[in-house]
């Protein structure tokens, strides 16, 4: 249970960063931290103590326990998508920096109204 709680604390650190920082790059970094904590949570839930990595070594002996392959598959999909969306946010940050000369989200205020 301690591991789950620590993982959730990592997520909360990310939430705190997204809400309180004013630098666009810091916001992207906080988003990545939130993503990492979600990936780790999924893999933690699928772990079986004493289990092996999900690779078939001996096809006959099926009594060897392996860890759950399904959460790992889903995390593999999600991790690639996370990097793609992050690079999109960073592309937006490049354009905003070229236009305004700053990463401060308070000064990027021409989108208002």
């Amino acid at each position, binding site marked *: *249970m301690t591991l789950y709680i620590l993982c959730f604390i990592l997520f*909360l650190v990310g939430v705190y960063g997204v809400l309180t920082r004013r630098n666009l790059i*810091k916001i*992207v970094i906080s988003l*990545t931290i939130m993503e*990492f904590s979600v990936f780790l949570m999924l893999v933690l839930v699928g772990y079986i103590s004493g289990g092996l990595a999900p690779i*078939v070594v001996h096809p006959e002996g099926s009594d060897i326990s*392996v860890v759950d392959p*399904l959460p790992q598959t889903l995390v593999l999909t999600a991790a690639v998508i996370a990097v793609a969306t992050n690079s999109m946010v960073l592309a937006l940050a490049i354009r905003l920096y070229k236009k305004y000369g700053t990463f401060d989200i308070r000064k990027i205020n021409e989108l208002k109204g």
Partner: protein
Amino acid sequence: MENLLIIILVLMIIAALAAIHAKDLISAVIAQGFVGYGLVICFFLLKAPELALVQIVLETVTLIIILAVIYDSSMKEIGEPIGKRDIVTYSLSFVLVALFLYYFNKAIVGLNPFGEHTLRMSEMYVKEVLELTGSANLVKGVLWDFRGLDTLGEATVLFTAAMSVLVILRISGKKHQLTKK
């Protein structure tokens, strides 16, 4: 092994806080790299070697992209005294954190304790992946065969993201060119 994981996770939390509170952006990026590579070690310990290898590559790519973005900027964190709006955002974040904690406490009751997961849906995958797909690697067998449509959706999202990066980073639009001259 659980104690080792706890130590790594605590270090990751410290590094995350350091990344958020760093004075310049380069140290923030380095601290974020610490969190990412700590995640890689956690994956190795949790018997997910594939995931660890993919995460190494993705983390390195992310670090390089962020460094390339901030290379031309001032690299300084915006440091201004705490104003009225900051108090609102800080209190809002604390309210949200408390709310999340409340619901997490309710949700964690339904989870099995760490290490005592029971296979439900993937029992069939584990038993029959070698016969049905011919892949000795369970993760790849599930990813490319049983859940191939998910992978197709992933490829769609990747393609859309790449296209939007291209559109956003186009040299310039017509209006911009006019104002430049």
